């Protein structure tokens, strides 16, 4: 059913956001130089815009930023996204002028350097900016190009290698490595912007390549996979709470240099007070899972490096997300201590062999910023989506975007008095009960179907085999001609 879109798509989304084609013409040498030589790269600061596949005019961008109505925006041309993937977004309730989330998608053919073939790829990314829109915008404009450059640097022969016992390194290890390096490079590229108050952003990337899906995540945005009767997260949220051990261990090892006597990397069972000095308290060092006793001394009263729990946790009482791009200029509130050393650009990457999954047409993955996940659980999201995708009309191409819209709507809720509230579970007697708070953050959701990729990949394999057979046949012909 996706056949008729395929060809239009190939031409529609072939290039990147910048209208460039990235093929084997690109010079891989310079890329290697950049990462190894620490030359500061300055990125041109672009004016604010929404994702290009939305096709919004400047005026429409202004109107969509209505903090009182919070309109849910969907692409008007569904074929702008590969496989008519669904997308919907809505702006925050007033915490920042602009919607600081961003998203992008690209598809094309990866020219392999040494193998005489090219490999189709499709990539989706989503970013949740904070303290300014610039870093998220830059990531939207550049991350895919950087990842592609890294992928093109992989020797084709290894990239195409299957689970071969003889090879130590598999193609997927190099693909994961390419994404990881690209994330680091992206973070270096935004340094200048981030120093000048451009803020930072989280990042999600989903790459379809050679029959596999790669889900990379840095920060508290999340990608989940929704199958017919199960759902699971493909990325892990990186918050001060979830990364407490990593953050505190760094502070523990380099306390003089990084904490400057203002913070402690120890964790106390109970917040220690001046009057507790000299008494025995429960505490733990980084990486401990249990507790130990110590006698409380003056340095223990320093502010905790990691405080709070879950979504409300903070590093140095300031930032609530511990991975992503940017924040190079971020200082801890009051003390002015640098926070960037505790933040990481490294994504966690998971790969899934889609050929081994028993996929059906309605199986998909959902990329979303915490505007959705703060108020909607994975399970609820999966149920909403299954319900929206189930009917046969209108066709699935529409339903994917309808599904994204339903999810954004569920998280945004409705304005009751002056507060955005979630819809009542029990609509009947919803009159008196106080409805839970809805998300007042920017909300972005992408719904990517898995089935079309699998079909395309199988077709690609078939074509490859046919070409190989042709080649052998023509060789045989020419040898028989010669004899």
């Amino acid at each position, binding site marked *: 059913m996706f056949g008729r879109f395929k060809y239009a798509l190939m031409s529609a989304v072939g290039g990147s956001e910048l209208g460039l084609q990235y093929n084997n013409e690109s010079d891989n040498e310079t890329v290697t130089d950049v990462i190894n030589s620490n030359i500061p790269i300055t990125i041109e600061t672009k004016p604010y815009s929404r994702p290009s596949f939305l096709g919004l005019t400047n*005026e429409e961008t202004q109107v969509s930023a*209505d903090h009182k109505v919070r309109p849910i925006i969907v692409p*008007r041309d569904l074929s702008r996204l590969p496989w008519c993937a669904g997308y919907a977004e809505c702006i925050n309730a007033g915490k920042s002028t602009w919607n600081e989330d961003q998203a992008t998608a690209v598809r094309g053919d990866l020219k392999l350097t040494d193998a005489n073939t090219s490999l189709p790829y499709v990539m989706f990314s989503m970013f949740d900016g904070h303290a300014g829109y610039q870093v998220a915008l830059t990531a939207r404009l550049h991350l895919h190009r950087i990842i592609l450059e890294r992928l093109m640097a992989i020797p084709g022969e290894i990239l195409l290698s299957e689970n071969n016992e003889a090879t130590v390194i598999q193609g997927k290890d190099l693909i994961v490595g390419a994404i990881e390096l690209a994330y680091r490079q992206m973070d270096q590229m935004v340094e200048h912007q981030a120093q000048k108050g451009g803020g930072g952003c989280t990042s999600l990337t989903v790459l379809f390549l050679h029959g596999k899906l790669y889900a990379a995540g840095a920060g508290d945005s999340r990608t989940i996979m929704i199958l017919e009767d199960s759902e699971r997260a493909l990325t892990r949220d990186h918050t001060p709470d979830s990364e407490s051990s990593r953050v505190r261990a760094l502070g523990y090892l380099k306390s003089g240099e990084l904490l400057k006597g203002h913070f402690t990397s120890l964790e106390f069972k109970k917040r220690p007070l001046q009057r507790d000095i000299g008494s025995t308290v429960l505490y733990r060092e980084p990486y401990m899972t249990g507790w130990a006793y110590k006698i409380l001394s003056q340095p223990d009263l320093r502010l905790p490096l990691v405080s709070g729990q879950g979504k409300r946790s903070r590093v140095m009482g300031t930032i609530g997300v511990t991975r992503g791009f940017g924040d190079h200029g971020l200082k801890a509130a009051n003390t002015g201590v640098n926070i960037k050393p505790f933040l990481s650009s490294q994504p966690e990457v998971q790969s899934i062999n889609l050929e081994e999954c028993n996929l059906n047409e309605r199986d998909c993955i959902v990329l979303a910023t915490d505007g959705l996940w703060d108020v909607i659980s994975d399970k609820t999201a999966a149920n909403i989506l299954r319900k929206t995708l189930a009917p046969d009309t209108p066709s699935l191409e529409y339903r994917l975007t309808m599904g994204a*819209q339903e999810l954004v709507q569920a998280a945004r809720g*409705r*304005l009751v008095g002056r507060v955005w509230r979630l819809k009542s579970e029990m609509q009947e007697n919803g009159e008196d009960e106080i409805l839970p708070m809805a998300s007042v953050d920017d909300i972005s959701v992408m719904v990517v179907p898995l089935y079309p990729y699998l079909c395309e990949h199988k077709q690609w394999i078939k074509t490859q085999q046919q070409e190989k057979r042709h080649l052998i046949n023509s060789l045989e012909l020419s040898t028989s001609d010669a004899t």
Partner: protein
Amino acid sequence: MSYAYLFKYIIIGDTGVGKSCLLLQFTDKRFQPVHDLTIGVEFGARMITIDGKQIKLQIWDTAGQEAFRSITRSYYRGAAGALLVYDITRRETFNHLTTWLEDARQHSNSNMVIMLIGNKSDLDARREVKREEGEAFAREHGLVFMETSAKTAANVEEAFINTAKEIYEKIQEGVFDINNEANGIKIGPSHSPTIPGGISGPGGQGSAQGGGCC
């Protein structure tokens, strides 16, 4: 471009009655026979002149499908005018007007001007709803009525402009509190505040219909 006022409109009505086509005809002066299903909300804008004043119309075109009703409801907020559209060749779209009207009255501010539009007047041969029926419905519910054709552009200009005229009159009468953006009216950056209506008019904010956010 500078303007004296900005009026926010919303277009509502069943799916397939021609809401998006009316908007396209008004903003771009063209007709698109095959229009994709509107899933979310679309925006359009055009400048008009009333009483020698430049007025910018910002029009929100909504999805008509039943499945999107709850989403559409949130767009009534802060609309000064609504075009309620039915298709003269499909009786059921006329029958659903009561539900649309209830929705609109419940979720908008009480002064919102509603214009009833019977679209596709070019398809007179296939007409299922008589012009008189539209007129009677409008009279009964206090709406302005007009038959239009997004295809031939008949009455399209008039529909949008007459709605604006009525809003403008209400401003002159002081019915609309133009300083409250929840009413769907914004004073242009160029305009000096010498218009009446600084004070809330009779019944201005009286209704507690769960609408405006103030």
